[in-house]
Structures are given as C-alpha cells and as structure tokens.
C-alpha cells in the first residue's frame, strides 16, 4: 500500500472577496509525481504557493508526513522549488547558485563542492564546462536545469515545479519534461508540478488534479482523467471531445435520436424521460470510419473537413445539426475520403459518455 506523504485538508484561500481555492482535499503518496492542471486563475498555483509557504491559507491545513506545516515559514519547510522565470541569482555563477541552499544550511565547503558537482552531472551540465558561467550566458533550457539542480541540491523532502517549462520553446519543453521525470524517478522525490498544458500533465504524471475556478474537478491517473472524465469541464479541458445534442426516444430501450438517426446506448441517466435533451460525448479516436470492428453504434454523414496531420488524419463529419470529429491512422494504401463524400462512422456504445451539465 502506498504511503501517504502530503495531505491537504479543506484548503481555502481568499483574496479580498475572491475565493481562489474553495476547500481542496487532496492526498499525495511518497514519491508520486502529481500535476495540478487547469486554466489560468483556477487556483493551481495558489495551492502550490500555499504548500511552499508563500501564501497563508485562509483556512485548512497542509500536512507533510502527518505533521502540520501550515504555520511554518518557507525557509523552514525543506521544500525545493523551480519557478517559471528560472529565478537564478544573476550575480552568482552556476556553481554558486547551486551551492546557495547548501551554504545557508551550513554545509562545509569541500562537501558543498562535491554535492554541486554531483547535481550538475545529474542535470547534464558538468561543472568543468558550465560551473563558472553566469545565468545570462546560458540558454533558457540550461538555466532551468540549473534551477532544478539548485532546488534539489539541499535534498528537499518535496519538489515543487511552478510551470517550469512555460518559458521554453516547444522542442526543449518536451525533452526537459522527460528529463525532469527521469530525475524525479531516480531520486524518488515527491513532486508537485503546476501546468496548464494537458499534454504535459498527461505525459509525465502519476496522478493529475484537474482544477477549475478554485474547485478540484477530478483527481486521478492520466488514464482515468482522459478516459473517464468526472465532469464536463474535465472532459472538455483534457483532450478533444465531441459533443452531440440528442433527444431521448425511449428511456426503457435506451434509444436516443441524433439528427434523425436512432442510436441505442448502453445506459441512460436515471430519470431520463422521452423527448428530454441529452449531451452525448465521445473522443475523436473512439470513432471509426466505416464499421471495422463490429462497433454497435453507427451514424451516417457527409465529410465536411479533412485535416492531414501526418500519422493521423482528422475528419469532420456533418451529421445534420451536429458535427462529429474523428481521428483515423494514416494508411499509405488508402487515401482519405473526399469532401462531401457520404460515409458511415461507428463507435462502441460504451465509449459514449453522458456528462452532467
């Protein structure tokens, strides 16, 4: 059984009349990589800053290994943090930046040198080449690696990452996020990563906290978040989602009408009555062109758009009032359908989610 490391209890943060975190309850295990995911202003950074000690909660508690750290100052929490803007000390070279926390902790100079070298090797910027460089002499990606080394050098019990990749270009982002994840795995340090990029969160997290307007919408593994979104917000924020407007035909038979086509669903929400409107949602990759694998739900429509994305082709099919997006793998022997071509699309009724509004 996983060991609980960090517990957040009824955490509330209010700025004036604006409540930015509305009673968060979360529990993170030792060594986990957790992402706080959500749009700007959802409260994810505020939670991180409360864990760091930069913001005082209006109410609620933060417990690390069962001990309440809420009253502690940031410099008493033994937490490492990497900031979006790198925040390297401009007056210090790389070695001095990484050694800063060790110096504050009173580590003797010879041990400090060894630890700095160890950390710089860990992030792939050996001291012999990069140690004497100043931050302004390095690229953004290199600066952020140094910031990571600086945060990890004093052996913190937890690592906080506040959108550390946001200021970097796309290619560096991908390589650095993988590097961060492998370093985190190597050290086994509990890590909280704040991001608004769902792909980033899905690709590197053990579990994800999806937030919206100060509320925790869902807390689960990337697989659960993507495939079984708990709320409409999670479903629309994470990944692409088709939403079809339907009408209940026969509640007992689980049949609904979508643009004049009758579909039989696996189930309907309790209390669904005939003629009641419904929103059916499904991922583009759950929908197939034709009926290749005996899917039980079939719809007919006309090709409205074709987007060739390389390995994947995204099609938009006009069903009448509704439009359905679907992704199909590029097959070198089969060209994509033409515009206005009449097609059949299919999916499994189990892949259709009926989300509460």
């Amino acid at each position: 059984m996983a060991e609980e490391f960090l517990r957040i209890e009824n955490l509330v943060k209010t700025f004036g009349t604006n409540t930015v975190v509305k009673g968060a309850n979360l529990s993170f295990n030792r060594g986990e990589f957790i992402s706080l995911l959500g749009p700007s202003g959802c409260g994810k950074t505020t939670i991180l800053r409360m864990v760091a000690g930069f913001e005082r909660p209006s109410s609620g508690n933060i417990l690390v290994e069962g001990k309440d750290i809420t009253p502690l100052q940031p410099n008493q929490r033994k937490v490492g943090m990497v900031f979006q803007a790198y925040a390297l000390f401009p007056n210090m070279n790389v070695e001095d930046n990484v050694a800063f926390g060790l110096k504050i902790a009173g580590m003797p100079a010879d041990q400090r040198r060894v630890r700095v070298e160890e950390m710089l090797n860990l992030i792939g910027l050996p001291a012999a080449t990069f140690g004497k460089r100043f931050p302004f002499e390095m690229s953004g990606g290199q600066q952020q690696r140094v910031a990571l080394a600086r945060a990890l050098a004093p052996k913190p019990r937890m690592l906080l990452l506040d959108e550390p990749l946001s200021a970097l270009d796309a290619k560096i982002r991908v390589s650095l996020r993988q590097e961060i994840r492998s370093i985190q795995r190597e050290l086994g340090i509990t890590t909280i990563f704040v991001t608004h990029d769902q792909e980033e969160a899905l690709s590197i997290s053990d579990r994800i906290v999806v937030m919206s307007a100060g509320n925790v919408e869902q807390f689960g593994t990337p697989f659960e978040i993507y495939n079984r979104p708990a709320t409409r917000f999670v479903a629309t924020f994470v990944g692409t989602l088709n939403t079809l407007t339907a009408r209940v035909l026969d509640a007992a038979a689980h049949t609904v009408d979508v643009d004049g086509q009758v579909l039989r669903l696996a189930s309907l929400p309790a209390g669904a009555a005939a003629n009641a409107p419904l929103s059916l949602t499904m991922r583009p990759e759950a929908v197939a062109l034709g009926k290749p694998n005996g899917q039980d739900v079939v719809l007919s429509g006309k090709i409205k758009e074709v987007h060739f994305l390389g390995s994947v082709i995204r099609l938009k099919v006009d069903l009448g009032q509704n439009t359905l997006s679907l992704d199909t793998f590029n097959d070198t022997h089969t060209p994509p359908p033409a515009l206005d071509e009449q097609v059949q699309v299919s999916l499994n009724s189990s892949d259709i989610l009926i989300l509460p509004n």
Partner: protein
Amino acid sequence: MKNGKLWAWVMFAVGAVYFIGPLLATLQFSLSIRRDGYSLDAYRNVFISPDFQQSFVHSLLIGVAAIVVGLLIVVPAAYFVRLRAPQLRPLIEFVTLLPLIIPPIILVFGYIRLYSSSSILPLTNSSVGTEVLLILAYVALALPYMYRAVDTGLRTIDVQTLTEAANILGANTLTILLQVIFPNILVAVLSGAFLTLAIVVGEFTIASLLNVPVFGVYMQNVGANRAFEPAALAVISFVITWAAMGMIQLLARFAPKTARS
C-alpha cells in the same frame, strides 16, 4: 529632415555656450593670478592650504557616513515597498521628494529647534552630536536621488521571485537582502552613492548653520576673502562632481551583466 538636424545642432551649440561659457570664464580667471600669464598658483594655494585638506577630508567622511546611513534606510524600505506594499509606492515617492520642496534653510532651522540644547535630545550640545545631525540632514537631502536610484535598480530584477527562490532555499530576510538583492542592485546603489557624495561635498547652508567646518563652508570663506582661489575651488568642485557622474556612467556599463535574469 536635414533642416531639423541643423536646428538640433544649433540648439545644442546654444546650450553648450550657455553652460560651458561661464565655466571657461571661471577656469580662465582661476589661471590668471599672475599678471604676466597663466599659472596654476591659485590651485597650488588651495591644495597646500591645511584648511582645504581638512575640510575636504571632513566632507568626504561625512558624505560616506551619509551614504551608509542612507543605504541602510533606503534599500530595505524600497525593497519592502516593492515586495510587500506596492500600494504605498506613490506615498513613499512623495515623501522622498519632500527634501526637494523644503529648502535646506527650513530643514536646518527645524533641526536646530528640535535638537538644540533646550530639547530632550540636545544633539547640538556636542560636536559629535552636531556631526550626527549634519549626516542625518544630508541623508534627508540625498533621499530623492538615493531612493530613485535604488528603486530603479530594483526594477531591473524580479524582486519577488528572487526573494522567494532564496527564501525556499532556507535564507532569511537579512541573508536575502545582503546576498541576493544588494549585489544585484549594486550598480544602481553606487549611482545613488556618487550623487549623494556630489551633493554633500558642495553643500553650504546646513553645514554653515550647524557650524561644522566642511568643504562647502571653507569654499564660502575663501570666496569672501580671496579673488582667484574661489575660482580654482569652483573648478575643483566641478571636477569632483563630474568625476562622480563619470563613475556612475562607468558603472552603468556593468549593469546588464548583473541585471539580466
């Protein structure tokens, strides 16, 4: 376009003549102590005068003390206003401008009234007390320049993030100020320091009324009793001021290295 450029040069020339003309006249006069030609005798007379040496060193020491006290007040104040109370900035800026609005004569009479022998803190009773009072007066006088220089320095760095980064690595406020903030605004701080020095070295009103024999008072005394030496002193004090300004320019070249983050 060409016409505009010509006018710019004309305006520049008029300005240059307006400012440089009197200076050249002063320089020429300071070199004219002998009837038979130019000489540096006036400067020699000034430099060998023990009063000059004493008053100049005295002024420098008071200037350095005013800079140190000013920095101890201004750097933490500007830092905390930027970090914790940005809403107070307009108020602080207004307060720091007051020394420009209130004439030094008013300031010094206020001081004498507050700290004379009949007050509860009779600083003017002793020479040390009077010098302390003079230093504090110069701190107030230099406040507009010092605060702005430090504030400009703070604007070039991300004060909040650097503070938080150092804080979470275990540093307390004093360590953050001394090891992170201060070194990164050093160039700006030195600009403020040189401006303060330039002001202090030439100041007369407050020093005279507090009866402290500093350089400004010496210059006034020489001006009242001699002919050519005051001109030489004026040129010397201009050179000192320019040297201070030159140092600011020189230091500004090093600014980008430490200011970029």
